[in-house]
């Protein structure tokens, strides 16, 4: 403290008045750029330095049971990931594809099975610290950093229990997590033997720069299937409508012959804002999709429930504006007071009638 006090005095005496408003200590001993930056105080470092490494440096003390994890999971996580973390609706599944044998070997056998349809999180992840760190820092999706340390231990315990890594009565804690690491199904599934980590790394293929008669027989191995011709929208509307390189009109079959310079390009429609744009811009689409349930109900479900009721538009505008929960489950919808009444009416009208 004495040293810091001296430094403060030095700063004042040097008439660096702009800096003196800073409430925190300046350190000048090793700094080359005078007056730039300041030391972080311990509370600040603690608030932001939340990462947990594979050796569990950074892991706070705490614990959580499988049973508690299931409760947190059902309240906070299941709407996106499914009750058993198996859902493929919104995100790829978290649990599935691992076996008791994988827990013994530390290699997930289904990863080398080309027929395995999905690669789940627990098939891939080698380090239990990665689960803890990520769930704690970024989940739930629409309310990151709202899980306590103990809740995080509990949720990780629940997931590991679903994958049969830990038993039903398990309590995961900072004391036993290193033991759990030794049972992670894919703990031996990662390799650093490749050339893409260091810029001096060695490539794994060595192609030739042959210039002539390199491939006597050119064979086409793959093309876009006909049914996918228009799957990305009309390509004519994704290219310039003048100049030498127009887009093909993919709403129609390919032309029978070269069109010549008279071909009229597809029309560019000057951008008009649609209600769907409003729906996206105001972040409604983060939780609601047209036909499938995400965090909130689908638009079709909403329309089916309310369509035709008297005064329903005003009622829903008020509900969207104030937020709330109960009708569609326990996950609350945040208030949307930042959206104008006009936009809310347009969006609600569109949900009920047009989309």
């Amino acid at each position, binding site marked *: 403290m004495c040293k810091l006090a001296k430094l403060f005095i030095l700063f004042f005496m040097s008439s660096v008045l702009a800096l003196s408003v800073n409430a925190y200590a300046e350190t000048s001993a090793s700094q080359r750029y005078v007056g730039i930056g300041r030391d972080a105080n311990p509370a600040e470092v603690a608030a932001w330095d939340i990462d947990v490494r594979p050796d569990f440096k950074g892991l706070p003390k705490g614990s959580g049971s499988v049973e508690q994890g299931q409760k947190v999971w059902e309240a906070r996580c299941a709407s996106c990931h499914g009750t058993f973390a198996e859902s493929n609706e919104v995100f790829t599944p978290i649990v599935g594809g691992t076996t008791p044998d994988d827990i013994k070997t530390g290699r997930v056998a289904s990863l080398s099975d080309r027929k395995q349809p999905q690669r789940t999180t627990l098939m891939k992840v080698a380090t239990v610290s990665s689960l803890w760190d990520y769930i704690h820092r970024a989940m739930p999706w629409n309310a990151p950093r709202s899980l306590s340390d103990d809740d995080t231990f509990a949720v990780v315990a629940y997931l590991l229990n679903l994958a049969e890594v830990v038993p039903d009565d398990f309590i995961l804690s900072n004391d036993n997590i290193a033991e759990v690491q030794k049972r992670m199904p894919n703990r031996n599934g990662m390799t650093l033997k490749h050339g893409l980590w260091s810029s001096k790394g060695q490539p794994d293929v060595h192609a030739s720069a042959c210039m002539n008669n390199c491939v006597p027989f050119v064979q086409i191995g793959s093309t876009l299937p006909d049914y996918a*011709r228009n799957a990305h929208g009309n390509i004519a509307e994704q290219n310039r409508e003048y100049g030498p390189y127009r887009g093909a009109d993919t709403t129609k079959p390919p032309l029978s012959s070269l069109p010549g310079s008279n071909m009229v390009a597809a029309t560019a429609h000057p951008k008009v804002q649609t209600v769907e744009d409003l729906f996206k811009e105001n972040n409604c689409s983060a939780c609601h999709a047209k036909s499938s349930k995400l965090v909130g109900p689908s638009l079709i479900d909403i329309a089916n429930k309310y369509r035709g009721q008297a005064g329903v538009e005003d009622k829903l505008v008020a509900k969207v504006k104030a937020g709330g929960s109960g009708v569609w489950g326990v996950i609350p919808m945040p208030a949307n007071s930042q959206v104008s009444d006009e936009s809310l009416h347009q969006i609600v009208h569109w949900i009920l009638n047009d989309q």
Partner: protein
Amino acid sequence: MSHKESKQRGQIRQAPENFLSPDLINDLSTHGLDDKRRGFMRNGLLAALGGAVGVGSSLNAFANSEGDPAILEKQVWQTTLGKNVATMPYGVPSIYEANLIRRESPGLTRVSAASVAFTPLQGLFGIITPNGLHFERQHQGWYNIDPDKHRLMVNGLVKHNRVFTMNDLMRLPSVSRIHFIECGANTGLEWGNVAVPTVQYTHGMLSCCEFTGVPLAVLLEECGADLKKGKYLLAEGGDGSGMTRTINLEDMLNEVIVAWGMNGEMLRPENGFPLRLVVPGVQGVSWVKWLRRLEVGDMPYATKDEAVHYNDLMPSGLSRQYTSIQECKSVITTPSGGQQLLEKGFYNVTGLAWSGRGKIRRVDVSFDGGNNWKTARLETPVLSKALTRFNIDWVWDGSPAILQSRAIDDTGYVQPPIKMLRDVRGTRSIYHNNAIQSWKVESNGEVSNVQVG
């Protein structure tokens, strides 16, 4: 061309030749102009010129008529007063460029806040990506972060844990450097087979900007970092996803920039305003946006995007972890998939080449599916870990052709064919597909995405 379409055209008026019926246009291109047809055409043009302000290509047939109305007639922009300065205080592209925008690939992701929007490479020139078209990859949505409330903390193996405001950072000595950024999953849809139609979707997670910021080395030195023990850097974002990635300090230290500038202005919010990490040569996920913290450490961190995603699964079932470098790659951007050539004759074939290991030394182009190759012209500047533009002349005789480009970087590495990559890595590794791209030109002028071999 239907008349229905022409009515939807908004402010963009039809060129006069569009008022000729398609039948007559066909007839003209087959038989040329005789007196009867010339009469039809004049009538058509007269009708068209009633209100048309035409742009577009002229009929070759104008050589035999009075001439091109785009020349003979006074256009509205030649005879009236134009708009005031600063009508658009922040300028936007011409209305005629409305088709060239960032686009999502339908069905690729299920939630738009965790998704990607691709850069329309098929319409861009040179090596710099306009800021409004820089590709977007969001993991948990994007924010406009208040720069007055943004802080950068440096901690870990440093003598002093330090905090910097944007004021602080922007006072430090800065550098401006041009670098490409490519998502590790760029072209990832194409590992198994052709999956998407155009270069926007095959290669559009690629952009290149001039970035301005303070070198990482300056900041770390300022904080007294122990670089003997501290071989790794954790970079952390300030948004809800708290994106974290490990940077290999041992060989990246001298090139990494803590950046706020992008092509002469501040970063765009969707690209990390007000602060992001620039890690030249390394995949985009490591260029952490809304950068709030740098931690110097003595081991890699195995963060979610190093432990669950951004690992390259090999046929053995082992995953390559911490794959970061973007190897040498190139693609022809015009003509490219989904485009339509109108006629035979001369074309300037152009594209982009880049390498995460240094400069582009050479680009070769094949017009016959890789059997014979010619060396393309490299346009300047040719910069390390930046896009390099190449051009090559081509006279198309109207017969089917398969166009490919193959880049070689200054380490001597040659961009491989897809089969060679698959032989080593299989088809399920998602990331780091730097294979040679093939575009087939059909005799009807339509270009499509194909894979050879």
